[in-house]
């Protein structure tokens, strides 16, 4: 389970989704592991706008890492060119993001919902979000979120 992933997960219980307490989920008894993933600066630059930085900060802090208050500013890349020129300062930021978001894995532990307290187990790096059947009730949310 990567820190990047935590930015896109919430509680699987329907009733929790409208509660701000359910996001992000909180790690408990986390055993960390560094994995080795190919460094891809373009991937990071493109994915960063989709990341909820506040969620990343909460998660990283709970796991004992220090991250900046604000989401790092990264250069825009020329989509048409295949080679990227990246300034040394940006390169350093990107390497740090790569290590934190992609290579830091929670191998064993739990993800806990701050709203209902449900604990999702992580085993060998895989989180299990299956719910006991009484919690799996289906209910939909209203559709336009722009109001």
């Amino acid at each position: 389970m990567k820190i990047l992933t935590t930015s896109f997960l919430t509680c699987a219980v329907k009733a929790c989704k409208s509660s701000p307490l359910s996001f992000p989920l909180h790690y408990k008894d986390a055993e960390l592991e560094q994995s080795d993933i190919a460094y891809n600066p373009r991937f990071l630059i493109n994915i960063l706008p989709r990341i909820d930085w506040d969620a990343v900060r909460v998660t990283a802090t709970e796991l004992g890492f220090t991250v900046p208050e604000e989401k790092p500013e990264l250069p825009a890349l020329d989509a048409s060119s295949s080679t990227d020129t990246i300034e040394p300062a940006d390169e350093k930021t990107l390497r740090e993001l790569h290590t934190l978001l992609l290579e830091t894995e929670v191998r064993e532990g739990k993800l806990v919902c701050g709203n209902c307290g449900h604990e999702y187990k992580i085993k060998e790096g895989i989180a299990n979000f299956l719910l006991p059947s009484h919690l799996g009730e289906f209910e939909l949310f209203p559709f336009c979120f722009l109001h």
Partner: protein
Amino acid sequence: MASMTSDEDFERSNVHEVYDQIAPHFSSTRYKPWPIVERFLLGLSDGSVGLDVGCGNGKYLTVNPKIFVLASDRSEKLVRIAKQHQPHTCIVADNLSLPHSPSSLDFVISIAVVHHLSTSTRRGQAIAAMLEVLKPSPCHEHSVSVDVNRAGKALIYVWALEQKHSRRGWDEGDDQDVMVPWVMKQNTAANGASEKTFNRYYHLYRRGELEEDIQAAGGEVIESGYEKDNWWAIAVRRPAK
């Protein structure tokens, strides 16, 4: 109509437990991506984040290296196989209780999954759950100020009833709810070559049914078609009135 719990029990023994047992064998036969799925994934903008619901062995995770996929499956054994495909993430989850915030993602693919749900209500719920996590289309009131291209898109792919030239030979008018055998050949030192048959439940979609289900679940079909024994559709969330 049967209760929700007994439908789940039925799917547990006739879908999930079967996949757990056939996982390695099933996985070794599933490596070639369907062209429509490949086209959809390659058409996403760089940095898109989305789901592969019912990812199986994760064969779609290698199609586009410029996107980030959260892949999920009910079968923990298949998720373990899918996990090798970095930099993506694989989790165990139920497609009716997805652990993602509403309106948060750029895309969802669901390939050969919805047809394993045993009632039309549950198939509709699965489609609705996938539409719900997509970034919404703007409502009519807001459509002027919002970039429509940013709406999330879902690609849903299901087995077709109309496949008279296939090995199975089903066609229009046949029973749509079927048990399909999976024959697993094993070679063991003790028993030599042996065969074991597992049956999986399928609801075979007839022409137009997938579009109807998507519409009823709050989606708007923007493209649909037929590809080698399967119906597929690409949908966005229908704008609120």
